[in-house]
């Protein structure tokens, strides 16, 4: 800490540093990452479909009376800025037939849980001695699941308050889908906790640094017999959890709530401008949070085989943060590819998968892991 003419008590220091971390994470990491994920989706989906996507951005100075438009460099990388300006300047319309209080509340309810869950994810080791996690609580993953369940409220309230049949159908479908897949979500990671013995996300990452990544034990040397036995349950856990994250974030193939071909725009049909932007950002923020949890639990968090942690210098601390977000970006790319590859599940197929298939697989997985652990001891 730099020397100040007065002393701050440790609690105040902690509060100030946490505040700084929160501001940095929200404004320097999450919001830019969300905007550029949207841009990446547009570009990647375009390239998959044999077209190009937005590759040029400019400022239309001719609208203000100048002779030439300003063409910004770096191709289309400023497109998210253009999107942000559009959302700010667009007319924010509240239809007459909506339930006004809940109509205004719903976008906030959709965005806040997605951002709140980032608080427990360790996105780096340490930087200048400060641990790179906002809230190092011992109930990390439980906090994530509890807050993620609140995300359902935003959608159901949006669908209901919009007072239109497409929104209502989208809201109802989304609610039942998210509730159904929360079972698989929670149960699929219980084997991880059985193996690691802790719910604290930073401890889980430290465990993976010592014993190798959960689904890739070779990153910390040759896996032991115990790890080889546990590898299949961990893989099943990974697959079920990833699929449940797809369903929780309303992402194809579990896309029915906002299926553009069936429901106009689903639960956000009646929203315009900034409120729609909040839904949109909330969905992508939930995706980023889901990917961060997957990376932390299964892919080793911020660690990488030959890279040291932040106690060896601030450069290593920054590299750890970069490694974490590189992994998250890779997973986001996978999400984008899956969206543009698979057809949408029909609603009864979706419910059947959630309640009959993944729920039972997750339960059996817990049983198998417990048996293996009992056998090894």
């Amino acid at each position: 800490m730099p020397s100040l003419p007065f002393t701050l008590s440790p609690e105040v220091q902690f509060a100030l540093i946490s505040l700084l971390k929160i501001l940095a994470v929200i404004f320097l990491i999450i919001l830019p990452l969300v905007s550029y994920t949207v841009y990446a989706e547009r570009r990647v989906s375009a390239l998959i479909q044999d077209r190009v996507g937005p590759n040029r951005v400019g400022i239309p100075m001719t609208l203000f009376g100048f002779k030439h438009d300003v063409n910004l460099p770096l191709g289309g990388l400023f497109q998210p800025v253009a999107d942000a300006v559009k959302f700010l300047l667009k007319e924010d319309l509240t239809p007459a037939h909506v339930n006004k209080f809940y109509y205004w509340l719903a976008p906030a309810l959709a965005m806040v849980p997605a951002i709140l869950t980032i608080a427990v994810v360790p996105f780096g080791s340490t930087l200048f001695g400060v641990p790179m996690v906002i809230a190092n609580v011992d109930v990390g993953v439980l906090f994530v699941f509890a807050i993620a369940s609140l995300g359902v409220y935003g959608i159901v309230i949006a669908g209901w308050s919009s007072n239109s049949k497409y929104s209502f159908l989208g809201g109802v479908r989304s609610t039942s889908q998210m509730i159904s897949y929360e079972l698989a979500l929670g149960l699929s990671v219980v084997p991880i906790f059985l193996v690691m013995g802790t719910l604290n996300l930073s401890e889980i990452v430290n465990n993976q640094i010592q014993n190798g990544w959960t689904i890739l034990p070779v990153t910390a040397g040759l896996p032991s017999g115990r790890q080889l036995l546990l590898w299949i349950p961990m893989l099943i856990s990974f697959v079920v959890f990833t699929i449940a994250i797809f369903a929780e974030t309303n992402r194809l193939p579990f896309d029915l709530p906002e299926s553009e071909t069936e429901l106009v725009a689903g639960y956000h049909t009646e929203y315009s401008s900034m409120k729609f932007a909040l839904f949109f950002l909330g969905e992508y923020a939930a995706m980023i949070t889901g990917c961060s949890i997957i990376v932390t639990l299964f892919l080793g968090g911020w660690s990488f085989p030959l890279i040291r942690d932040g106690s060896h210098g601030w450069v290593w601390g920054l590299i750890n943060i970069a490694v974490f977000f590189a992994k998250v970006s890779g997973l986001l790319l996978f999400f984008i590819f899956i969206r543009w590859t698979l057809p949408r599940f029909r609603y009864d197929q979706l419910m059947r998968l959630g309640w009959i298939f993944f729920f039972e697989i997750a339960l059996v997985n817990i049983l198998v892991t417990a048996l293996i652990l009992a056998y090894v001891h």
Partner: protein
Amino acid sequence: MAITIKRPELTLAERAYLPSIFAGLMTTVKHFFSTLSNKTKVTMQYPEEKWDSHLPSYYRGAPALVRDEHGRERCVACQLCEFICPPRAIKIIPGEIPEGARYRKVEKFPDQFDIDMIRCIYCGLCEEVCPEQAIFLKKEYAITGESRADMVHHKDKLYEIGGLKTGLVHKWNEKK
């Protein structure tokens, strides 16, 4: 008679669905890299690349009036194009060719000929119906204006786009 169509039997790999996802991803990734490395070239980067030089001969651009090699304006204001135009973009006010003019026997010419380019749908019906071979759809497509009034092409603009056209039937010439 009710025809029952049997559902196709799915193999175990198809029912598991994960191998199909993998196969689908292979297709998607192949398209991704093929477009990224410019092996599939479908998109034209307008305005750096334009296809003005190799537009197909049947391309329908903006409609325009033509003069023939004798300098006569071909249009006789019969108003057939105005009648057939689906969005009613053409507005003609006919006038009389005065006494003493060289082509007095044609009798009519368009005093005012407006095509509202906002309404025009570039269908080409005016070119098809014209009995005088007077109106043709040219290759110009980038038509802009700053107000709705700017987007109406008047007679002089139409003759400017149209220019001279040779090889037309000279039905009004004197009999041999």
